[in-house]
């Protein structure tokens, strides 16, 4: 009996998907019943979509930069020399504990709006600052993920690589890190989802992302029902973007666990 129950639990129905569908249908039905509202929303959709591309762009760049820096930091955390280890450890400790919001604020306020490179003015727009603000915590988290993954590789693999004549860095590059990818993919994707959701914070510093666009739209239209619908749209947009990522992560985790 108990065994049967367990199996039932383990089987995960795509409740989230069902939920999104229900929510989406409700909104559509509502818009259908209140045609003028639907009309207005339709007019604003391109504007909102433009905002959302900003979220996607920021999140992709932030995770890309964060991953590159994070891997380096993670390797540094395991370096045999304290001089290399210490700064990485301090960086990771501080920025893993720092609220995303604060880091985004910090990035937008501390960096200049343009950089002078070889006498040319290169603009440093706000959204790039948001990328930096999110890449910093991302790199701290990825450093931890990388460190954990490297430590989970049996030392025998290091022995084998060094026995063949690989140097430490070659072992890392060719033998150890490739094996880490599989183990760290699920936490990496979790982080990606969390960074994507963090992009909404960029609205607070004036980056024209989805939430900011929604705000503009509700300011301009000034209808309470429209405001409600716009916020629901924002919710659904993020959900549709993040939910597949999280489902795929769960699938990967299950597949790895069954190994």
């Amino acid at each position, binding site marked *: 009996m108990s065994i049967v129950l367990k199996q039932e639990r383990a089987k995960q129905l795509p409740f989230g998907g069902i939920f999104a569908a229900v929510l989406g249908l409700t909104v559509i039905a509502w818009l259908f019943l209140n045609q003028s509202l639907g009309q207005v929303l339709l007019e604003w959709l391109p504007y909102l979509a433009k905002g959302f591309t900003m979220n996607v762009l920021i999140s992709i760049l932030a995770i890309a930069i964060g991953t590159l820096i994070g891997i380096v930091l993670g390797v540094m955390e395991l370096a045999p020399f304290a001089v290399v280890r210490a700064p990485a450890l301090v960086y990771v400790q501080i920025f893993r504990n720092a609220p995303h919001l604060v880091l985004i604020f910090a990035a937008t306020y501390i960096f200049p709006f343009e950089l002078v490179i070889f006498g040319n003015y290169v603009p440093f727009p706000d959204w790039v600052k948001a990328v930096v603000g999110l890449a910093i915590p991302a790199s701290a988290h990825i450093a931890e993920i990388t460190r954990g993954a490297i430590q989970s590789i049996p030392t025998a*693999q290091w*022995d*084998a690589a060094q*026995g*063949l*004549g*690989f140097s430490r860095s070659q072992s890392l590059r060719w033998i150890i890190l*490739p094996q880490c990818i599989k183990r760290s993919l699920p936490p990496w994707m979790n982080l990606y989802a969390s960074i994507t959701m963090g992009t909404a914070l960029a609205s607070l510093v004036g980056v024209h992302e989805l939430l900011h666009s929604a705000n503009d739209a509700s300011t301009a239209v000034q209808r309470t029902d429209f405001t409600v619908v716009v916020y629901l749209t924002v919710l659904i947009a993020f959900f549709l973007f993040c939910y597949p990522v999280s489902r795929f992560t769960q699938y990967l985790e299950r597949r790895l666990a069954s190994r």
Partner: protein
Amino acid sequence: MSLTVPTSTTLVELQDVHLSFGSNEVLKGIDLKVNKGDAVSIIGPSGSGKSTILRCINGLLIPQSGKITVGRTRVDELKTETERIALRKRIGIVFQQFNLFPHLTVLENITIAPRKILGISEAEANRHARDLLEKVRLEQKANAYPGQLSGGQQQRVAIARALAMRPELVLFDEVTSALDPETVGEVLAVIRDLVREGMTSILVTHEMRFAEEISDTVVFTENGLIVEHGTPDEIFSKSTNPRINSFVNGLGGRATPLHDGEGI
């Protein structure tokens, strides 16, 4: 024990090698000489320092005192990582726990070191790898992943991988202890072929009858010392040391039943 003067054919020589881990003295003065083309077996109880000797020879461990020579290289005097890596390229080592790289296919496991370290072209490396796979009788498994192979097959790949660097010397550390009795034979057969072809080899093993059959010299270690060495006959049949006799006859050691692959 006997301090032999290196002759022109000596490939490996250890003289009075001492090594401790912290306060735990593991090697207490090891002397050992291996001639080019010879097969030397090291036997002895668990914890007596057998693996440690192998690790000293390829520079994975550095002794506190004593001389280690491989060819013209003074291993104990190597200072930099680069120098030690140059040494390791000349010495193949195979471990008890195969330690194949799980993310690479059999072929890639064998070719990665020649390609990335020696800079050999992929085509050339693959050709050599296929020759080696034929030698260990695994031609048809080139594209399998380690997870898809049996223990015995994995260990044979590990041997092929060690040979891919064309070493002058191969060290085998209890290569059959992690295998089930049925697959031990496959692996021993491969090693027997290698030794017969004249590859200089040092084997740590618990397969007494196998050691007896293929070795030129057998060395018995106990407590960080080489307590006896000689021809297989001297050790296995004519030794007067009661410790050795009881070990060899499976009383004192963890000697496993022998499957020497005669049937393969």
